């Protein structure tokens, strides 16, 4: 396994991990920069969520429907719409437990659900093209998943890379606000925290 150190957290490039067959061997080890810190959490860590981030490093404006299966076999879509190269990134926070995560209908991976609109007006629709990420195999509670779209040479250069940021390797204490702990607290106060989730509710 190839690791990069990021704020004291080990970021595992899925391409080398034998336990993550779907993404094996396909990640650039230099994909994740190393930074120092520990001020704020970047991923949920010990809180009952998974962070799914979409990054647009292309010259197109993207529409990406993040698909989530909460355990009943149905896909719930969280659409990231009109993500321009300037805006660059946006993320969905999914409550734990979750069974599968991907793009589009998780049972229809070849539907052309990712829409890319280029500066000259060209619009292309492309499929996710692979099976969903599976909880317990490809990710677990507290992790971050990154869907990185790259390619600035038009539609033919459009590429997708997928990375996992293990929450277990993230520091548990932060000098700044613990964002996801705050999130857990708010949801608990509103009675929206899933009973099966384990988390700290004290802010």
């Amino acid at each position, binding site marked *: 396994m190839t690791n990069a150190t990021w704020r004291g957290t080990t970021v595992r490039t899925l*391409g080398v991990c034998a336990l993550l067959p779907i993404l094996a061997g396909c990640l650039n080890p230099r994909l994740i920069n190393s930074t120092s810190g520990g001020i704020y959490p970047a991923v949920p860590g010990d809180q009952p969520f998974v962070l799914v981030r979409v990054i647009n490093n292309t010259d197109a404006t993207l529409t990406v429907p993040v698909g989530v299966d909460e355990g009943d076999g149905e896909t719930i879509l969280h659409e990231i719409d009109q*993500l321009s190269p*300037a805006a660059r990134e946006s*993320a*969905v926070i999914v409550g734990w437990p979750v069974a599968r995560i991907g793009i589009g209908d998780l049972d229809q991976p070849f539907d052309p659900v990712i829409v890319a609109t280029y500066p000259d007006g060209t619009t292309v629709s492309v499929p996710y*093209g692979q099976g969903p990420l599976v909880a317990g195999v490809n990710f677990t509670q507290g992790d971050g998943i990154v869907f990185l779209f790259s390619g600035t040479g038009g539609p033919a250069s*459009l590429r997708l890379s997928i990375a996992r940021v293990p929450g277990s390797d993230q520091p548990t204490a932060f000098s700044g606000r613990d*964002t996801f702990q*705050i999130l857990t607290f708010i949801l608990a106060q509103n009675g929206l925290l899933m009973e099966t989730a384990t988390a700290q509710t004290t802010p």
Partner: protein
Amino acid sequence: MRYCIPRTATVVLPMCVATLCGCPGINPDLVGQLGGSPVSAINVPDGNIVILVSNLTPTLVTVDVQVTKENGGTIPLSIEVRGLSYSARAQDCDVQQLEIVQATYGTARRPITLPPGPLSVAGGTGIGCGQVLSIVVVGTPPDLTVQTQVF
């Protein structure tokens, strides 16, 4: 769930996903030689600013939030939340402004009256890295209200 593709001239291309392009063990330096754009690195965010929509009503609600980044880039978030549920989005901390544009309920998207006063929070002063913008929808249709707070 069906996904509606916009009515534009669309060309379905078999996008090159890494797993379908000669993996495993692809040499990162080889990517450029194959004609694709080499992925060198991405910047890991310093933290997150979270937008949380909590729907304490029995009906579907949708809250539209406009995110403006420090570089002027914008993201229109249309956050749809089922009854008695929540949805949360996150952005990198380089946010200049978050603005609640509108809130609606039901599939017909009937408007919810927003509270008076400015419904935008400025990055850095109104909301900072690591914080959560909580948007709570309460009430019974058609008498729904929106409450906002930054944690």
